[in-house]
């Protein structure tokens, strides 16, 4: 295949990727099944709806009803698979104790086994979705992007040496060790596997040395083990994917060579470095380009998130094009751009990016585990006790040995050395997972004992995921591994951690020692002087203290905007109350420019920096990006619900809900903001960590929850509603008719963002609350109830609405069903 066709190939994938990423819910619907190793990648089916697909023309009569299943079969089935897997995921989280004790991957595999059994009994073949190309071009990138993007940056760089040491050397150690010893095992005649040669053994060993300790990481988060251990496991699983894939491709090539010359070994080593470093290079380049692009996206907010995905995918594909490590490329790309991009894009885009990255990654992984279960049942296996048992044993032994030896070597270089317990957990946490399975499943058929390899890998995964995965939590608790406090984010802690960093780097300078603080210092200087100027639009260097402060202030603003009536009597000071009135009474009235300015002023005065407010009206191609305040409301909304969840009330934070722009005396920031509320805002590393649920203060207060959008009980209704006499309906009437499009839409969004299943608001008759919405105290907290009542209240003013509704509906497809169902 010539270079040109390869380019074309890449372009094709890009277009597919575009569709894929823009339709996150049905991400894999576009993937056609391909024969392994095939090079034709044009999807035979274009679900985007080409006009070609009319029923066959041979019949002269117009068919009244036709069905064309083959046309939609592939995307249809894939969608069903994704849905099924997602339902399974929902199911697990209904009852928390299951996911607490049993890792999710176990459950997914189990469900897969059940589905596989059903399919087997009806002699149905699983869809051949998992082919080499599909895996490497579509399923793997989201997984790695997710880990790369949510990598806690600071601890990673503090431990980068150890992480790479374990990831690279450890994986090499494992592959070579296991491969060699398996080859030795193969020489035993009793096992009848003498036909597996050294290359194939090495290939197989490379496959099963990819650890994938997702399950372990989630346990680590829950029990908050020390940061060093966490980041080493995290980084190891990320980078050893890269190493494994490189080895896999290398050995895959080697396995088909008839003879291996010694010079090939050296070439292999050289290639290893070229591939790894080349990948990094591409990643960095694309990362910077992405950051640079987002500098200019302030007017096209709605496609902002797309750039992130496109550039990372592009990095991946280009790396793939040159056959260098695409995983390294996408990971470094994510790492590089994250910091700059998150500062450039709007907060909403930032949230979108995080959610979509998370979602895509989860889908991929879920699917792979699910298929693992299905495939276990539906494929033919080649069972060979000797080979399988020895693989299990050798993998365990080499992993254990590797950790022991490698820590002995690295410990003298570490300030906080790994003790024996850490090493044990490190070794024991070597679960195998999705990557191994996918790799072995996509082996070319030319490998003679592919079936045996598949079977062995499945056994390996089952063993590690089920036995080690389930037992690791009790083990960690039993041997009492070092833990870290990483619960509350307070300004003081942030200030002091900065202070300490500066002090340390100062003292290091003083005493002539150097460490990563020195490099960090140098990098920060370079970053502030050059990189930020180029890459960031609003190029003000921002200390993380300021970032945290902003974050907390934003939280405050959020709280204010709808807790006012919650406990108005608790407001001990006049000023904040006054501000609250201004701040949240607004949505009631018609928007006067002066009011807007006023509010803006308050916000900008009290929150260090608010982003530029874009125009309130929307065109067809832009999101109604009218205000951040609404975003705040939405989030606030969920955070209230979250805080009302049973269990959270037992925490020390109950009964405090009054917040102010500026802190009144006696109010604490930290105690009121358990970290999970901070998850959607802010830009710094710690924040990211909490986005991946790293600091689980939550697990102390609530049951461990994996995702922010977890199904929540419909209990909400802060007492706001009952206390507030509803003056809103009437306002609603006059304001609705006077095109207050922006706010109205904001409300509708608000409404849709909260769960549908909510208890209907205790409605008031329009006739009994005729005060016109300007009476301050009532108004102040009332806008949310108003938003909820809108769809329900049968006011005559609705007649004027549908035009606008539909309009907003087209722009926000997500909303449309709701409006339709609720329209009187």
């Amino acid at each position: 295949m010539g270079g040109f066709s390869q380019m074309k190939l890449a372009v094709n994938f890009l277009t597919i990727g575009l569709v894929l990423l823009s339709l996150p819910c049905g991400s894999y619907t576009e993937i056609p099944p391909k024969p392994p190793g095939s090079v034709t990648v044009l999807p035979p089916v274009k679900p985007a709806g080409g006009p070609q697909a009319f029923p066959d023309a041979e019949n002269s009569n117009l068919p009244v009803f036709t069905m064309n299943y083959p046309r939609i079969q592939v995307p249809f089935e894939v969608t069903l698979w994704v849905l099924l897997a997602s339902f399974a995921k929902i199911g697990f989280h209904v009852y928390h104790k299951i996911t607490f004790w049993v890792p999710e991957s176990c459950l997914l595999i189990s469900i897969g086994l059940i589905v596989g059994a059903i399919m087997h009994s009806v002699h149905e073949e699983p869809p051949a979705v998992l082919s080499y190309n599909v895996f490497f071009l579509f399923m793997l990138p989201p997984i790695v992007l997710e880990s790369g993007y949510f990598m806690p940056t600071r601890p990673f760089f503090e431990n980068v040496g150890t992480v790479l040491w374990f990831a690279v050397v450890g994986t090499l150690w494992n592959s070579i060790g296991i491969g060699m010893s398996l080859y030795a095992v193969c020489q035993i005649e009793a096992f009848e596997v003498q036909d597996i040669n050294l290359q194939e053994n090495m290939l197989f060993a490379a496959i099963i040395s990819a650890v994938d300790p997702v399950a372990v990481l989630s346990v680590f988060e829950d029990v908050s083990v020390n940061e060093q251990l966490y980041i080493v496991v995290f980084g190891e699983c990320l980078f050893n994917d890269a190493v494994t894939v490189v080895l896999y491709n290398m050995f895959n090539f080697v396995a088909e060579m008839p003879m291996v010359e010694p010079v090939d070994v050296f070439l292999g080593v050289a290639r290893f470095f070229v591939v790894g470093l080349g990948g990094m290079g591409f990643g960095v380049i694309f990362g910077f380009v992405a950051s640079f692009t987002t500098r200019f996206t302030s007017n096209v907010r709605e496609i902002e998130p797309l750039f992130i995905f496109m550039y990372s995918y592009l990095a991946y594909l280009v790396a793939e094009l040159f056959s260098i490590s695409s995983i390294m490329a996408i990971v470094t790309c994510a790492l590089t751009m994250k910091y700059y991009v998150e500062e450039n894009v709007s907060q909403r885009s930032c949230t979108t990016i995080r959610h979509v990255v998370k979602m895509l990654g989860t889908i991929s992984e879920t699917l792979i585990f699910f298929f693992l279960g299905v495939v276990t049942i539906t494929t033919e296996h080649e069972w060979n006790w000797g080979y399988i048992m020895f693989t299990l044993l050798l993998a365990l032994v080499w992993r254990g040995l590797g950790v022991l030896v490698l820590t002995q070597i690295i410990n003298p270089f570490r300030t906080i050395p790994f003790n024996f317990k850490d090493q044990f957990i490190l070794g024991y946490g070597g679960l195998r997972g999705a990557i191994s399975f996918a790799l072995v499943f996509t082996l070319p058929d030319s490998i003679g004992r592919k079936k045996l390899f598949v079977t062995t890998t499945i056994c390996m995964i089952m063993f590690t995921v089920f036995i080690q995965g389930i037992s690791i939590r009790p083990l960690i608790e039993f041997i009492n591994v070092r833990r870290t406090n990483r619960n509350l984010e307070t300004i003081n802690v942030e200030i002091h951690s900065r202070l300490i960093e500066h002090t340390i780097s100062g003292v290091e300078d003083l005493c002539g020692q150097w460490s990563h603080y020195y490099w960090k210092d140098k990098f920060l200087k370079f970053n502030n002087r050059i990189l930020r100027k180029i890459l960031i639009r609003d190029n003000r260097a921002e200390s993380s203290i300021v970032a945290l402060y902003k974050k907390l202030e934003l939280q405050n603003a959020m709280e204010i905007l709808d807790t006012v009536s919650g406990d108005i009597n608790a407001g001990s000071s006049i000023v904040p109350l006054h501000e609250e009135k201004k701040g949240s009474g607004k949505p009631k009235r018609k928007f006067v420019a002066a009011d807007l300015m006023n509010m803006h002023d308050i916000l900008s005065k009290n929150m260090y920096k608010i982003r530029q407010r874009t125009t309130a009206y929307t065109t067809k191609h832009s999101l109604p990006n009218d205000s951040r305040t609404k975003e705040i409301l939405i989030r606030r909304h969920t955070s209230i619900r979250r805080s009302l969840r049973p269990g959270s009330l037992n925490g020390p934070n109950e009964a405090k809900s009054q917040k102010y722009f500026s802190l009144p005396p006696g109010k604490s920031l930290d105690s009121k903001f358990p970290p999970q509320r901070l998850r959607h805002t802010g830009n710094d590393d710690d924040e990211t960590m909490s986005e991946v649920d790293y600091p689980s203060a939550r697990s102390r207060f609530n049951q461990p929850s994996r995702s922010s959008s977890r199904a929540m009980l419909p209990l909400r209704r802060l007492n706001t509603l009952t206390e507030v006499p509803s003056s809103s309906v009437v306002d609603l009437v006059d304001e609705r008719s006077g095109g207050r499009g922006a706010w109205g839409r904001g409300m509708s969004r608000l409404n849709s963002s909260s769960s549908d299943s909510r208890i209907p608001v205790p409605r008031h008759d329009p006739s009994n609350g005729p005060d016109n919405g300007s009476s301050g105290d009532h108004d102040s907290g009332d806008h949310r109830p108003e938003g909820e009542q809108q769809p329900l209240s049968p006011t005559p003013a609705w007649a004027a609405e549908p035009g606008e509704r539909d309009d907003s509906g087209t722009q926000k497809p997500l909303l449309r069903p709701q409006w339709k169902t609720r329209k009187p």
Partner: protein
Amino acid sequence: MGASQSAGTEHEFQDMADRTGFSLEQIGNINKRFRQLSNNEETLSREDLASIPALDNNPIRAQIINAFFDKRNLHQNETGTVQEIGFEEFLMVMTHFRPAAMGLTEEERENLRREKLRFLFNMHDTDSDGTINLEEYRRVVEELLSKAGTIGQETAKAIADAAMLEVASTTRGKMEPDEFYEGITFENFLQILNTFDIETRMHVRFLNMDTATLRCGKSK
């Protein structure tokens, strides 16, 4: 320095090593650095430290340098500052940055914690009255942020205020609106930072290798 001196100081070093917990090599390295900084004098003055080029970019360099001349950090129960420090004092200040040894008991760990936090506290508490008042806190925050671009003093002030309020509310609980919070005492300081793993974070890697030559060749 000739061989005669190193022979003479060997005993002293051993003594210091026993007291500070540094290894002999580390003390040797620090001593070398000390001599380098002080131009082979017996004592070190503020100007010597202030002239280190690598420190130029440190936003809190004044505080760091002050800390070396602060009697409270020299394990003496007195306050005030000294003008010059000898090697022993230099080393004493450095002990605050020792990494936690392995296998500490709870009590030892707690002591280490207090010691390190005390050091930080002293950095804040410039007037040595045992509390960090708002002014002092503001100054620290301002300085911390001084290198961070164009952040106005307003912001720094607001942050310091918010931080102070945070301290007040965590340590006092609910306060009356007119109550006045006079400053952070050391106990409060311990309290607000009790979730902070200072013992694993505040340390310098004192290498056994002699990196002084390696690195200072670059920076000088």
